């Protein structure tokens, strides 16, 4: 029905359907919520892969403490530990900048040197070279 064109379906990895209205939620936000429902590990991995592929840029670890992620430091560290032992997350890697901030990237889309250079620019370089 034409008046319900805002109603959208999004499918989880297990095939389950979830619904939202595009009047109140963007497609990107709905995808992010879906990843959140699928578990924090999947949420982190999919966000990092998308950042590494689309922009490309490494993802600051602290971003997962902010809304809409809202993960605690303990949850993030626990997820990373869990992810390091699972095959499907072996492409998720980390680099630390010269001031000690951790960034995540996907080795499917970025190599380590390039990820480090981008992280260093985001974290340090852009503020020293305005």
């Amino acid at each position, binding site marked *: 029905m034409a008046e*319900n064109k*805002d*109603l959208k379906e999004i499918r989880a990895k297990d095939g*389950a*359907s979830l619904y939202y*209205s595009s*009047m109140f939620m963007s497609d990107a936000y709905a995808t992010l*919520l879906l990843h959140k429902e699928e578990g924090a590990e999947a949420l982190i991995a999919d966000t990092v892969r998308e950042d590494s592929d689309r922009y490309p840029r490494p993802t600051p670890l602290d971003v997962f403490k902010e809304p*809409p992620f809202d993960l605690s430091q303990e949850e993030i560290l626990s997820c990373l530990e869990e992810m390091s032992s699972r095959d499907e997350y072996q492409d998720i890697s980390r680099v630390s900048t010269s001031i000690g901030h951790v960034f995540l990237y996907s080795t499917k889309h970025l190599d380590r040197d390039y990820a480090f250079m981008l992280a260093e620019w985001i974290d340090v370089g852009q503020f020293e070279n305005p």
Partner: protein
Amino acid sequence: MGANNLKGTLLSVAGIIREKSKAGQLVSAEELLLTLKLEDRAKPEGDE
């Protein structure tokens, strides 16, 4: 189910999805069914 009932159900489904989206939440098919059942039970007698 009559045409009026079907239209009413569709309006309810759309309303639930929009309300949830406004609150920043996705809705599953199971949750929709449950909410519709609860709404149906809450209707006064003869209000079908």
